[in-house]
């Protein structure tokens, strides 16, 4: 569904990505793991059009989207939930959700999407009038995902959904991510520093290190890889 090939991205003289390639099949949850500065967020920002690659291409549903502006990429059904959530802090929860459906004109469809989002995150319905900036970190993450779902995406990219969130909410949010994938057939690219969690919910994984893919394979297999365990999973025996 999404093919990234030979992506090179730099910030000034610093290379952030030096030839990243991967493929994500329709309907799957695939994860990108790697340490700080490995290039995970840069990869997502380049796919969604916030950054321009120096070289390489991004193909989505058979179309080359490398040069498209960000808003045109969203319009094609590829939605990016950014790191740090980026909810519109001064807008209400309601307005944030409305912004998620910015490209939809059909009121009925928007109403259906709202009900769907409330079904997944009932908390948002309780907080509808509240200003988004006053929500807890976990609630903001729910809102960010809910906002993305309002636009009826076919492909969702989630950047560090567990970052800065109370542990018991992390479990809830990951359950919901899996649920959305199962029930809606939504393809998901998940970037996560918590590699254990990411490998648990995903089918396949790519490991990034200093802007390159250094390892890839089915998540179940990578979970048992001794080298990976030592680097990213805190070592310990295979559980």
């Amino acid at each position, binding site marked *: 569904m999404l093919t990234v090939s030979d992506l090179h991205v730099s910030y000034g003289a610093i290379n952030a990505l030096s030839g990243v390639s991967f493929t994500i099949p329709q309907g799957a949850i695939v994860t990108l793991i790697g340490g700080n500065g490995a290039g995970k967020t840069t990869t997502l920002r380049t796919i*969604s*059009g*916030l950054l321009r690659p120096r070289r390489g291409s991004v193909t989505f549903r058979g179309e080359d989207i490398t040069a498209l*502006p*960000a*808003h045109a990429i*969203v*319009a094609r059904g590829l*939605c*990016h*939930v*950014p790191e*740090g959530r*980026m*909810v*519109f*802090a*001064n*807008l209400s929860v309601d*307005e944030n959700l*409305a*912004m*998620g459906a*910015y*490209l939809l004109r059909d009121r009925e469809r928007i109403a259906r999407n709202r009900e769907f989002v409330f079904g997944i995150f009932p908390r948002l319905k309780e907080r509808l009038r509240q200003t988004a*900036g006053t929500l807890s970190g976990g609630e903001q993450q729910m809102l960010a995902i809910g*906002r*993305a779902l309002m*636009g009826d995406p076919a492909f969702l990219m989630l950047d560090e959904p567990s970052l*800065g969130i109370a542990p018991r909410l992390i479990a809830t949010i990951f359950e919901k991510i899996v649920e959305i994938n199962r029930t809606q057939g939504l393809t998901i690219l998940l970037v996560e520093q918590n590699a254990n969690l990411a490998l648990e919910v995903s089918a396949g994984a790519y490991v990034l290190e200093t802007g390159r893919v250094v390892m890839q394979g089915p998540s179940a297999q990578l979970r048992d890889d001794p080298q990976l365990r030592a680097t990213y999973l805190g070592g310990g025996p295979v559980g």
Partner: protein
Amino acid sequence: MTEFLQQLLNGLSLGAIYALIALGYTMVYGVLRFINFAHSDVFMIGAFAGYYLGQRVPAGTLAGGLAVMAGAMVICAVLGMAIERLAYRPLRGAPTLNVLITAIGVSLFLQYTGQLIFGATPRTFPQLFPAARLSIGPLSVSSNQLLVIAVALVLMIALQLIVFRTRIGTAMRAVSLNPNAARLVGVNNDVVISFTFGLGSALAAAGGILYAMNYPSIDPLMGVMPGLKAFVAAILGGIGNIPGAALGGLLLGTVETFVGGSAFSTYKDAIAFAILILILLLRPAGLLGRFVAEKV
């Protein structure tokens, strides 16, 4: 007491004009984080558009006056969008200082192109609307003054509805809060920015005509002083804050008028800048502005 009310009315009608101009500064600051110094010259062009259009409609009629105002607003909206497209958009992503200097350049360009085309000699602005002097109790009010307040009020309510009730208005607020997040939900930020310039410039045009009606002499440099004061008004209310700009404009106009009517009348023009210094020292975020603590 009568004099107080009289001055209050004068102040509010001047303040309403400052408010209309200040809204343009504050909206553009909201979406692009820079001060569009050319805004005061769009205000001037608005007055000149009113002057020329005014020759094509019967003078002193309500319908004619409103038509002229609408025409000038459209002309300035197009001008504002053209300025953004040609001068500021190529600098997207450049340091704010570069954009700021460009804005000063555009401002000078408009002023001196104005002198070339319109000439530097001041012209008398025509009486577009029916004129009358009304007596409300002991107060003597010109119909122009009431018109200024009424038109400004209607425009500000319309703006409030656009910004808080429409899809493009919500997008404006979203772009202002987080441009990248707005792009990620599918907002074409360039369209929103262009719309913001159009909206602000239309308000400046209305302000230019209302100003010219009350101080009926126009020239290509007429925008400088009211523009600076409206800028102060926007800072006073809290730059980027729409109700703040309206409040700041009304307050500044009122204070200035009262100072002008007092023993310190020579300081009438200085008072705006005294207020600017005070607000920057005491409450730099402005009356309605807030420092937003970033929550990571």
